[in-house]
């Protein structure tokens, strides 16, 4: 199998050689008109997809993968338009089809499962109404009873067992996973030949993601539906699709059978992507690290330089040393029987955190892992005193947090700093970078103007950002750069403890890898203690010394990271580990 760079055809060995592909994209070009002129988002993409196959388009945000998907059904957002190429569905060129023709194709021939289950259902209409209108629009059934019966059938098929009872409910009464099932049901309502799934599970917890993807896979196989997958997660793509297309900056850089690409990536960008994917990287620690291990770079940097290597083994070793040294010192944070009860009007009390106890040795990283609603963020908020403690103790640096008031509490805040998930929401858009980083210094009256400025420069150096950023504003920076700024701000007061609440979850894999390495370097350099809160077990392995797995407010398993990964004792932890996409893939040595 050959794979060439830029616009190569995906090559297939089909059983009967001459079969016409279901979908053939030739030289697709999509432009967006902006104030600065035309921007080409998709540039000369070729994809061939045969009946009954599954293909995944992989890439980071801005790579043009979603734009390609939207171009196929001609629902490009805003000013987007197809400016060249062909999209052949069964020989019919969709790029030249009229609005009316597209209305007939959408739903009936091409089903679409969108990305975010929270925003893709109309909040003012019931679930039943929204499924039924899809059925009616495609002429699958007529008459109220028939349409209703088909709606129930479709939803049951998508895994909503009590569909008949829930038809009258509204989207907000459904969980994220349930909504995604509804969207899958809607996408398949008219038995389309092709189903496009645009990041169908990226907004969901890993265990839910797994169940949904398993279901989608068996369902499409059963119905003989051809599947086109869009995802940023290489592990997930390789696990779920036979063919892979890797996109970078609007172009196809590599394509071919999934396993082959994973085991032997040709293009430098794919190599970096394979190296950085945390789900795959975690396996690589013990498996195979060759000298040619790929590099992490600024996304804009020249593809292909390999001087800047993420050395995961070295990181792990450094971690182990720090761990031994730390044993002699008193722990930085001790949490004892921490409990948080929220009073909910109408339905009594809700125990978000239930008798949680753990210790974090100085200079080490403890990861708090769990799905949404497990109470992990509430623990972080209580540590930061952003939320009151119902009962239990938090001891930081030998002092009970509850006993601190006024000045002492203020001092403590300078020693314990947070970094939050969303780098877009956690920086004030009206303050420039210099002011953002120096704000904690001003609040705690550290130094004078000149020394604060010098400190800002020093911090920018530490997080590997150019000093020229001082006068810039957050909206001019990328997500990764913003998160570095947030980390610089957290480090401004030379804290001993940094609480990272999903600090890398919103970032692309390559950027994520850079930030993780930055955090590891800073920890070694400044002897920092991290509490790392995440839903992503794959990330944990690269960064944490100890892991506490939380479920429904309780810690169900707590141990050293390697023990948790190699010998999980709790079923829940096993489920979480098994749900990491790509975890079962064997990367050839």
């Amino acid at each position: 199998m050959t794979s060439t760079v830029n616009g190569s055809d995906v090559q297939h060995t089909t059983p009967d050689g001459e079969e016409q592909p279901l979908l053939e994209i030739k030289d697709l070009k999509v432009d967006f008109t902006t104030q600065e002129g035309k921007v080409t988002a998709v540039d000369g993409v070729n994809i061939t997809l045969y009946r009954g196959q599954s293909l995944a388009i992989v890439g980071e945000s801005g790579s043009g993968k979603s734009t390609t998907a939207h171009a196929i059904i001609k629902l490009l957002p805003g000013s987007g338009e197809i400016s060249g190429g062909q999209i052949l569905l069964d020989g019919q060129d969709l790029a030249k089809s009229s609005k009316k023709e597209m209305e007939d194709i959408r739903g009936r021939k091409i089903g679409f499962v969108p990305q975010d289950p929270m925003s893709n259902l109309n909040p003012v209409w019931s679930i039943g109404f929204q499924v039924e209108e899809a059925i009616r629009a495609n002429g699958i059934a007529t008459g109220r009873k028939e349409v209703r019966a088909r709606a129930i059938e479709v939803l049951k098929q998508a895994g909503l067992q009590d569909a008949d009872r829930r038809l009258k409910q509204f989207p907000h009464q459904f969980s994220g996973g349930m909504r995604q099932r509804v969207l899958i049901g809607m996408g398949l309502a008219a038995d389309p030949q092709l189903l496009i799934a645009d990041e169908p599970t990226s907004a969901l917890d890993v265990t839910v993601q797994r169940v949904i993807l398993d279901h989608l896979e068996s369902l499409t196989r059963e119905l003989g539906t051809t599947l086109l997958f869009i995802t940023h997660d290489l592990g997930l793509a390789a696990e779920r699709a036979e063919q892979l297309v890797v996109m970078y900056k609007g172009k196809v850089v590599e394509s071919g059978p999934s396993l082959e690409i994973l085991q032997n990536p040709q293009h430098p960008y794919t190599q970096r992507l394979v190296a950085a994917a945390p789900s795959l990287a975690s396996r690589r620690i013990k498996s195979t690290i060759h000298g040619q291990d790929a590099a992490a770079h600024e996304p804009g940097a020249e593809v292909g330089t390999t001087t800047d290597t993420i050395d995961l083994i070295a990181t792990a070793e450094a971690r182990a040393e720090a761990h031994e040294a730390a044993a002699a010192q008193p722990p930085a944070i001790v949490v004892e029987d921490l409990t948080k009860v929220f009073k909910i009007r109408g339905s009594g009390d809700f125990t978000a955190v239930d008798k949680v106890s753990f210790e974090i040795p100085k200079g080490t990283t403890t990861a708090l892992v769990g799905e949404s609603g497990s109470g992990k963020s509430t623990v972080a908020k209580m540590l930061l005193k952003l939320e009151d403690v119902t009962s239990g103790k938090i001891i930081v640096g030998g002092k009970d947090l509850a006993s601190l008031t006024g000045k002492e509490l203020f001092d403590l805040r300078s020693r314990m700093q947070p970094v939050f998930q969303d780098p877009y929401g956690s920086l004030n858009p009206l303050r420039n970078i210099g002011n953002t980083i120096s704000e904690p210094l001003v609040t705690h009256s550290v130094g004078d103007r000149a020394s604060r400025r010098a400190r800002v420069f020093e911090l920018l150096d530490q997080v590997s950002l150019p000093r020229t950023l001082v006068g810039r504003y957050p909206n001019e920076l990328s997500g990764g750069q913003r998160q570095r700024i947030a980390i610089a701000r957290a480090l401004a007061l030379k804290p001993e403890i940094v609480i990272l609440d999903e600090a890398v979850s919103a970032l692309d894999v390559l950027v994520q890898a850079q930030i993780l390495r930055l955090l590891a370097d800073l920890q070694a350099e400044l002897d920092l203690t991290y509490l790392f809160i995440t839903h992503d077990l794959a990330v944990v392995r690269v960064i944490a010394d100890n892991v506490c797995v939380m479920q429904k407010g309780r810690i169900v398993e707590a141990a050293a990271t390697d023990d948790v990964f190699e010998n999980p004792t709790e079923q829940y932890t096993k489920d979480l580990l098994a749900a990491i996409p790509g975890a079962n893939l064997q990367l050839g040595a």
Partner: protein
Amino acid sequence: MAGYIARRLLQAIPVLLGTTFLIYFMVFAMPGDPVVALFGDKTPPPQVLEAVRERYNLDQPFIVQYLLFLAGIFQGDFGVSFSGQPVSEILAVTFPVTLQLAILAVLIEMVFGITIGLVSGLRKGGIFDASFLVVSLILISLPVFVVAFVAQFVFGIQLGWFRTTVGPGAPIQDLILPAIVLATISFAQIVRLTRASVIDTGGQDFVRTAASKGLSRRRIVPVHILRNSLIPVVTYLAVDFGVLMVGATVTEGIFNVPGVGRTLYQAIIRGEGPTVVSFVTVMVLIYLVINLLVDLLYAVLDPRIRYAK
């Protein structure tokens, strides 16, 4: 739900007490003696003055006057105007007129405002959108009395399509011109609000999903765009209806509409304490009830909103 309504009604009590007290105090503090003013140029005999003062409790200290008035209200007695007519009777005559006027005005706002806003929002940046941006800016900039006089002159006098004044007992079609004038005040707001809301909804993910299901544009626009966009617009309209219900003083004055606004205006000029306070009390009550209805309407329009307990 019932509990929520009860709580809201209980909240209305302090608001009602506070507003009536303030209004009563302001009327009391107005300069000049209303009783003397009643007699104009003539000087009434002291006995008559005394009798009038006693009748209206004007010889009592302020706080006693207020409490007596309050006690009356709770017994359903809104007092008597200086002309000897019970205030409740005046209310019974004027409110239906204002109600008709307000309904007409809101209907006009709704039909034209929402239609134009929808089309502008769907064709953002087009010629239609641009022209109505200019029109609504002009309407926002013009004071209502200018619109009223121009309308009266052009449509009433020059073209003769409408009667220029309404007067007591006039048929409902005479209210159309004042209603149009009233509607112009909020019309521009409705257009802008609908337009913004349509643009916002049109860019939502679920609209794209609706299209990806194979729905036609003819179905998406009313069912998925307009329906969602109407939530803020309808609540704005309801509040606006409340504002119009409590009187459009200027418009009613210009067109001589015998409604709440004009009557209140005249009572203020004459310093008729009981009339002013009674009117305002009823207005505050209506306003509170309409606001409560708006909040309940919100829950009907948006299934995500449910009022606990």
